[in-house]
């Protein structure tokens, strides 16, 4: 596959007044776009299988059809101008969770897989962050990308608009819960409801499995159930899934929310204070909308998005962390992904420096540390320790090199004290 990217140009007035076109090849990071290209293929493969398989199935004609159909829509969703370091990593954001709640989730998944035996793999996400993947890492990586940049954002919009109320009408003999299908039938009471789920292809290197992707959500907890493509899920199956998973997932989601808030308070997270909805509206930044609602209604305690909102108050540093081993990524630079665009809170020039540092790291195998002072007087630090990379942007214009080094050490001690990360 080939991707053609045109270098940005600026027109300058030459001495003689004639406009001269100048190519800004430095502005483009090759690695970002080669990563985007690879991602395109992975995404195609997730929904269509390999090129080779299409050729085998129906020759070049079929392959062309599939490519046409897929990329016609997919290309429009790429926002090439805002691609950056995170696209190189293609990482997964993991939801921090205590052991007990994690074990409860394990237990839940195992029980569902036991009672709905056609479920082959399960993935569990909370707040758009991964908690468990039954799929292998590479497949999860691209599925995660699809979920967080395409499927979830599409469903948040109507939620914000308050169009489909998450509280479903009480059905007789059914426990009230907040579960609903993000893929598949919209209304289980409609006997005509279509049980069509997206088909995905995983383990294409060996077993080459085709699966139906069922995404089911209750409050902030989303679960992907993947079932053998040869089995066509019926409306009855969906109803059963809904009745088994819905109530359990609702309870679990509120447990996770509660536990997360407790942990945040204990660990003295950067912004550990608990703000009530009122305070926030006073700040004038957040309007109370379903998205900001705490999962356990009425507690007045808000979860993650609030932290993001408050961190706009310019902390001393922002960072991106990535671990090649488990693809874990963490960024305080990027705002919450929206369906339209991924927003960063720093100047594109700084993002470019991050990309440059990353290219330098790729060239050498050994652990390295690079400290750069940007034109805008920000300090940018890149650290590589074994398979981990950390990029820090410091907002201390008058700091010297030693102070910067100390700041980063402090950051590592607070944020990464439980991993082996060399100072």
């Amino acid at each position: 596959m080939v991707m053609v990217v045109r270098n940005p140009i600026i027109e300058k007035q030459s001495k003689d007044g004639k406009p001269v076109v100048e190519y800004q090849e430095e502005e483009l990071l090759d690695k970002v776009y080669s990563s985007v290209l690879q991602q395109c293929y992975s995404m195609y493969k997730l929904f269509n299988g390999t090129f080779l398989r299409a050729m085998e199935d129906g020759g070049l004609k079929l392959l062309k059809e599939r490519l046409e159909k897929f990329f016609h829509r997919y290309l429009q969703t790429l926002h090439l101008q805002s691609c950056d370091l995170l696209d190189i990593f293609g990482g997964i954001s993991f939801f921090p969770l205590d052991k007990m709640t994690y074990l409860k989730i394990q237990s839940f998944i195992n029980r569902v897989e036991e009672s709905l035996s056609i479920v082959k793999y399960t993935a569990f996400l909370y707040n758009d962050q991964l908690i468990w993947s039954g799929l292998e890492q590479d497949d999860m990586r691209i599925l995660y990308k699809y979920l967080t940049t395409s499927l979830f954002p599409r469903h948040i919009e109507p939620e914000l608009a308050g169009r489909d109320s998450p509280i479903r009408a009480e059905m007789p003999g059914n426990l009230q819960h907040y579960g609903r299908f993000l893929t598949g039938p919209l209304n289980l009471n409609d006997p005509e409801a279509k049980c069509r789920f997206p088909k995905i292809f995983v383990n294409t290197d060996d077993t080459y499995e085709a699966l139906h992707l069922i995404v089911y959500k209750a409050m902030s907890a989303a679960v992907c159930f993947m079932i053998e493509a040869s089995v066509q899920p019926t409306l009855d199956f969906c109803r059963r899934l809904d009745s088994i998973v819905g109530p359990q997932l609702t309870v679990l989601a509120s447990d996770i929310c509660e536990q997360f808030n407790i942990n945040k308070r204990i660990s003295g997270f950067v912004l550990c204070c608990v703000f009530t909805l009122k305070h926030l509206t006073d700040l004038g930044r957040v309007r109370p909308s379903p998205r900001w609602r705490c999962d356990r209604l009425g507690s007045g305690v808000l979860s993650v998005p609030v932290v993001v909102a408050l961190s706009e108050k310019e902390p001393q540093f922002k960072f991106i962390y990535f671990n090649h081993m488990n693809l874990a990524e963490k960024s305080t630079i990027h705002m919450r992904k929206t369906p339209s665009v991924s927003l960063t809170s720093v100047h594109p020039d700084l993002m470019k420096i991050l990309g440059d540092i990353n290219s330098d790291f790729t060239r050498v195998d050994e652990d390295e540390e690079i400290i750069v002072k940007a034109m805008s007087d920000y300090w940018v630090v890149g650290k590589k320790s074994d398979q981990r990379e950390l990029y820090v942007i410091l907002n201390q214009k008058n700091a010297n090199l030693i102070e910067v080094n100390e700041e980063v050490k402090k950051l590592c001690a607070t944020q990464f004290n439980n991993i082996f990360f060399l100072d």
Partner: protein
Amino acid sequence: MGEEDYYLELCERPVHFEKANPVNCVFFDEANKQVFAVRSGGATGVVVKGPDDRNPISFRMEDKGEVKCIKFSLENKILAVQRTSKTVDFSNFIPDSSQLEYTQECKVLPEKRSLKLLKSQNINVNWYLYCPESAVILLSTTVLGNVLQPFYFRAGTMSKLPKFEIELPAAPKSTKLNLSERDIAMATIYGQLYVLFLRHHSRTSNSTGAEVVLYHLPREGACKKMHILKLSRTGKFALNVVDNLVVVHHQDTETSVIFDIRLRGEFDGTVTLHHPVLPARSIHPYQIPVAGPAPVTSQSPVPCKLYSSSWIVFQPDIIISASQGYLWNLQVKLQPIVNLLPDKGRLMDFLLQRKECKMVILSVCSQMLTESDRATLPVIATVFDKLNQEYKKYLDAEQNYTMAMEAGQSRSSPLLRRPVRTQAVVDQSDMYTHVLSAFTEKKETPHKFVIAVLMEYIRSLNQFQIAVQHYLHELVIKTLVQHNLFYMLHQFLQYHVLSDSKPLACLLLSLESFYPPAHQLSLDMLKRLSTANDEIVEVLLSKHQVLAALRFIRGIGGHDNISARKFLDAAKQTDDHMLFYTIFRFFEQRNQRLRGNPSFTPGEHCEEHVAFFKQVFGDQALMRPATF
């Protein structure tokens, strides 16, 4: 009815005595559990057999008329014989000597050969019942006989407990005695004394069948009606209490049922209604061994008639057949119950209260994990939770005891006792040895199920805040590795589900060749342990990451105590001269800082490295001692 179906049995070694006949009278003493066979009024011999002592006591006494009752005092020191309704004859019992008797109408002073009246109570008594285990006597008073007056004996004193009334089945028509001693029993169940009343007809007309009403008789406070055991049948019944279970024998059907008052029943606000734990079954058929000379023993044993009308039942667990000359202890067999109680949660509740439960519980656990008999995960989780709740209770008691001991409370509080570890405490090691280890090795079990079960057990332990032993974590890892489920393993470690420990970190290191990220996972774990810094240095050096090792040890402030030779060796092995230079210079600087001289001391054994350094970089590259 299958062989495995009988859950009650008579003990294997009964007390055998000469059966009752016109010349041989048989008596049973509930206090000492002794059977007296009195032949011809004692003149031709008295044989006394207890359940524990295999050596019967035999003696002769003068025949002074028909013996109505005969008993020993505790420890067999004084023999009491009742021959008339008003007198009791006593004699100090010395084995193998003639007996000299003394008579009294009712404290016995053996040294003076006399008795002393300690206390007297004037009550019209219809009948009495004495429970030796609790030292409580129950007197039936009033015309109907249904007002019971308990007395409690302790250290030679007698205290009166509040009297209470037994509710009779229906309003009595006549004013004659309505409550018979045959329908009342006393027994200790779960450490509490209960009066058991066999009510032949329920008070409520709509329910038929007899029931057993349990009145709790506390040492202090009033007696209270607590439980009703529904028998749902009528006829002749007899009660036993075995292993805290109430056993009700029904003569008409020749079956028995058991009740456990700790199992959940229907609570109506005042009393709890219980139904039999299990379907009614006969006591296990019993064969009477045929005694006789050796040649005759080939004769097959004779089946014993069970539920015979000549059976007499005593509390708590005694059944006597006077006509056959046997005294048995009734026993509960747990293994057959496993198949009779399909609800595993209830089965566990039941088993956990039994004395000899451990091996049965472990076998239930093994059974529910076998492919053919597999329970669902929610059921397995329930069983694990019940086991761990009991396990945690014991751990807490043990911890409280240890803390109290350390705080020196042992002297001030005599009540402080080391908690008893009952068989119901099934710990991780039991589960590992008897259940989980074998379970993970079974080829036919799908690995998904194996992992789900192990995680469920770990979840349950965590839920009860019990520290999980590393061998369980190793079992999880072993299973995951066997099935190449490394990504799953990675995720478990990422969320610290498998707790950090040095053995686990070492196990991970060994997996690096199959799964490279295991190296990082292992180092992270060693780092978190914070007691494994030496191991971290070794791991890094083994990977030729000399600089990383040095930076790590410097980061934790341990660089003044490390061996220069070890690092120089590792640096030399990398064949990277610049690295060797850097490391060498670092130690020269350390020497300078610590001793004021950059050169190595002979004790550091670095001559070889100094020579190598000179060879590569020249003499002039050596650091010069700082001069001031």
